[in-house]
């Protein structure tokens, strides 16, 4: 009997939890049949079970609620505010009673008749209690997946057994490799391996729970609070599918509740105040969860009145939390952070909900106890954002394993922005006063060596290392150099011992597949220990970027392997992004290959005459400012740069020339030709015109060249041997005699020097275009 009661209690609790959101949704939309049905199902289940267990009070309550809801279902009655509130009250009472049963206590005192009476329709003629129970409980199972209850210890034990099994499997694999291989044995072993892998996967997920379980109760809570306070609040929840360890969910339940109560109580204003402040009368409370690096971020944002930092400071000074001098030096952020000090609350009066000043400090200490952080940001009059960052310990995270001096470490993959070779073409490493600076495609990022930070002796030369560009949660990018990169792995991270965590470098430990422990690095910790200043970084990086780009004559290109296997390069500037589509998205339509990318259908180049197979197709999305085309490729090789020593193709086509890139020849894809031949059929076939200009002049290279190219010329540098149809030069420059070419002289002065001066002012765009056209016209004939 006790077992049965325990099952009943568990079932009720689960349904109650799931119901919280449903009821509020039902209130907003009383005609929503699905919600009504699920609430009805709940009271119906409770009623059915009560008869069996002999809980007369529960039975009377659930029976009354069932009757009322049955009337609504049958259309005899309309769901109104009064009914919803009454049903809510009944469900709450049922919840209290279920809790009492679970605890083995007597029912809370009180009379239920008032509750039952409130369910009666107010003015309507008393409808006959039509308990035409045509509704059986069969629909129940469909509402939620079937569940059983297990203790976490049992799960832990299963999990550790499975881990042992994986290790045993690895041991067996080693033995098998050593002995002479036997095909049937290998086959059987392979099958065993895949089963174990699957099992491990499943069992690890048993500990994980969607954060939805925590969020599902929020709408109801906010509804009750706002009703009580006479406010209108809309709850917007996002990211319920983020998975978190069960225990972690329990740990953040109270802090989250507290923050939300605060937001509704203190943050969001009364409707009249909101209107007066020029806001919509309904306040919005947005709660979202997402995974970021080795942390889960939970954002609680309200658009209420915000926190008055100065008021907090005044109060803190008055309470003696901080001194006056200290107070004057606080930044806005520091001022807001005072809210977490014990004994501070800006609420003018203490309410029943919150505001006794014993809240936020408790919230902070609770979150910090599980290794998390609470952050607050607020704009007076506009709202407040609270961010809970809780660690992912015990959760599965994808990580990259790297090695330094033979020892392996793991780095959370989500913090990794890109991986480049230190000796790659687009990367340079410099040392300024001992500090490392890496320049990656014109972007300056601080560089730290993991070997130096860890105090390990690396056998690998600085230039042969690999740079991992990291963006820690909430921080800015930096590059971490490591000896070697190994593998992507899914790791189950466990908290490390305090003595290990004290280094500030590690986020936890984990076991590799071969059973040896691996330390998981904390990207933010590395930056801190490595002395990287994360906050000031982005600005300096931007400043560094522009002069580098302007000073570089070399055009950055993307080196890749085409589908037909050729090594090719494409100017980086025309590549918008890289997409991956199923091969089925590519088809021949209206006379050419086209690819579907979301809503858009783009012409596809680079795939003509190549069998795409059935797998995924990767493609560059090229953009010339107005049109887009796709260009299929096999793989990206590197970012590189070409100097102007390009051997141009004889005939215009997809490939405009060949050049040495990273020591090997690569075909340069002519983006202009691609657009010309794929976008708009009106492009007439004509001989390409060649224009020679001094490309070492940055102005020519960056400003003039695009205009000339847009006019249909191919641009070559002065060093090029090719015949030019047109020469562009700065006035006064010396030119080799070339009778066949036309020459456009450019002058820096807006005013012409005299009547015979045929030069064009360098910013006279119309004049330039006219000159370009006239040369093209002459040649075209």
């Amino acid at each position, binding site marked *: 009997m006790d077992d049965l009661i325990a099952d009943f209690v568990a079932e009720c609790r689960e349904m109650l939890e799931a119901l919280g959101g449903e009821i509020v949704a039902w209130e907003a939309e009383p005609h929503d049949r699905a919600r009504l049905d699920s609430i009805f199902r709940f009271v119906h289940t409770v009623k059915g079970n009560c008869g069996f267990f002999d809980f007369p009070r529960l039975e009377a309550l659930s029976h009354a609620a069932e009757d009322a809801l049955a009337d609504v279902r049958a259309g005899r009655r309309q769901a109104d505010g009064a009914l919803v509130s009454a049903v809510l009250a009944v469900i709450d009472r049922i919840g209290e009673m279920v809790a009492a049963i679970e605890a083995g206590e007597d029912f809370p005192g009180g009379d239920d008749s008032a509750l039952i009476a409130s369910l009666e329709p107010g003015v309507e003629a008393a409808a006959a209690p039509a308990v035409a129970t045509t509704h059986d409980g069969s629909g129940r199972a469909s509402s939620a997946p079937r569940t059983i209850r297990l203790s976490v210890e049992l799960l832990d034990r299963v999990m*550790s057994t499975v881990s042992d099994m994986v290790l045993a499997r690895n041991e067996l694999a080693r033995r098998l490799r050593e002995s002479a291989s036997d095909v049937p044995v290998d086959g059987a072993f392979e099958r065993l391996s895949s089963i174990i892998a699957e099992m491990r996967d499943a069992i690890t997920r048993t500990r994980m729970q969607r954060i939805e379980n925590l969020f599902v109760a929020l709408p109801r809570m906010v509804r009750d609070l706002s009703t009580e306070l006479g406010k209108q609040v809309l709850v917007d929840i996002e990211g319920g599918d983020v998975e978190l360890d069960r225990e972690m969910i329990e740990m953040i339940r109270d802090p989250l509740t507290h923050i939300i109560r605060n937001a509704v109580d203190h943050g969001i204003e009364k409707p009249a105040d909101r209107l007066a402040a020029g806001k919509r009368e309904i306040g919005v409370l947005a709660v979202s969860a997402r995974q970021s690096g080795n942390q889960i971020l939970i954002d609680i944002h309200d658009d209420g009145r915000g926190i008055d930092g100065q008021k907090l400071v005044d109060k803190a000074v008055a309470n003696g939390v901080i001194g006056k001098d200290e107070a004057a030096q606080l930044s806005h952020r520091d001022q807001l952070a005072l809210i977490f000090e014990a004994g501070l609350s800006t609420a003018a009066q203490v309410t029943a909900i919150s505001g006794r000043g014993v809240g936020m400090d408790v919230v902070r200490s609770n979150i910090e106890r599980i290794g998390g952080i609470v952050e607050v940001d607020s704009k007076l009059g506009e709202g407040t954002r609270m961010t809970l960052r809780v660690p992912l310990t015990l959760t599965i995270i994808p990580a990259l394993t790297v090695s330094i001096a033979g020892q392996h470490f793991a780095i959370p993959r989500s913090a990794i922005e890109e991986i480049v070779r230190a000796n790659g073409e687009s990367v340079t490493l410099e040392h300024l006063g001992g500090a490392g600076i890496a320049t990656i495609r014109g972007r300056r990022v601080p560089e730290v060596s993991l070997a130096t930070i860890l105090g390990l002796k690396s056998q690998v030369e600085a230039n042969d290392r690999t740079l991992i560009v990291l963006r820690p949660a909430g921080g800015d990018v930096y590059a971490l150099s490591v000896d070697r990169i190994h593998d992507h792995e899914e790791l189950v991270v*466990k908290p490390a011992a305090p003595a290990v965590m004290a280094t500030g470098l590690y986020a936890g430990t984990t076991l590799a597949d071969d059973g040896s422990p691996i330390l998981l690095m904390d990207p933010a910790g590395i930056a801190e220990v490595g002395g990287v200043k994360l906050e000031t970084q982005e600005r300096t990086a931007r400043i560094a970027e522009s002069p580098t780009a302007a000073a570089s004559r070399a055009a950055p290109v993307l080196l890749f392997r085409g589908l037909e296997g050729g090594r090719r390069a494409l100017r980086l500037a025309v590549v918008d992004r890289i997409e991956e589509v199923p091969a089925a998205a590519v088809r021949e339509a209206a006379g050419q290959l086209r690819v579907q990318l979301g809503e858009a259908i783009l012409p596809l180049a680079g795939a003509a005459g190549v069998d795409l197979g059935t797998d995924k197709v990767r493609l560059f999305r090229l953009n010339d400012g107005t049109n887009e085309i796709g260009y299929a490729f096999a793989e990206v090789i590197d970012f590189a740069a070409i100097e102007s020593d390009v051997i141009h193709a004889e005939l215009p086509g997809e490939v405009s020339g060949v050049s040495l890139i990273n020591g090997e020849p690569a075909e340069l894809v002519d983006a202009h030709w691609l657009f010309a031949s794929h976008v708009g059929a009106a492009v007439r076939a004509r001989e390409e015109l060649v224009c020679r200009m001094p490309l070492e002049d940055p102005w020519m290279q960056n400003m003039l060249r695009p205009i000339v190219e847009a006019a249909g010329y191919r641009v070559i540098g002065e060093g090029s041997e090719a015949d030019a149809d047109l020469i562009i030069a700065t006035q006064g420059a010396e030119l080799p005699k070339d009778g066949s070419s036309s020459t456009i002289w450019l002058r820096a002065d807006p005013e012409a020097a005299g009547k015979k001066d045929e030069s064009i002012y360098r910013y006279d765009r119309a004049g330039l275009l006219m000159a370009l056209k006239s040369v093209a016209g002459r040649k075209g004939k």
Partner: protein
Amino acid sequence: MNELLLVVTIAGERVALPAAAVESVVELDTLIPVPRAAPHVAGLSALRSRVLTVIDCMRSLELGHTNCSDGIREAAVVELDGHHYALIVDLVEDVVEELSAPAPVRAAMGTGWERVSQGMVETEGGPLLLVDVAALIAGVETKAA
């Protein structure tokens, strides 16, 4: 019933660990160092699917350090605050019964021993120093802070 004690040798000295605190005695072979951790943290090791934080007891007692490069070391596995530690010892001898409650040692001991001492206990084999496992794990640094 009297408490059971695990008699081990650390730095050539026979001392007692509360046997109830010790989960198992293992032989460590591989040791993964933890760069930048406190010196008495010798590294990490795996016992079945658990990660053990390996504590060099000699270091913790400021009595030099154990040479971990020569392969297998004996260690006592203990659990503290949900984390598992392996305490490297020279030798694990025996389990004996405690015959008296710990009494203060009134003679002057080395500073390291002083820090981890829980007193002297009588056993059949004579008096032994009862070592505080938590203090051993904490090492010198936390004490100084």
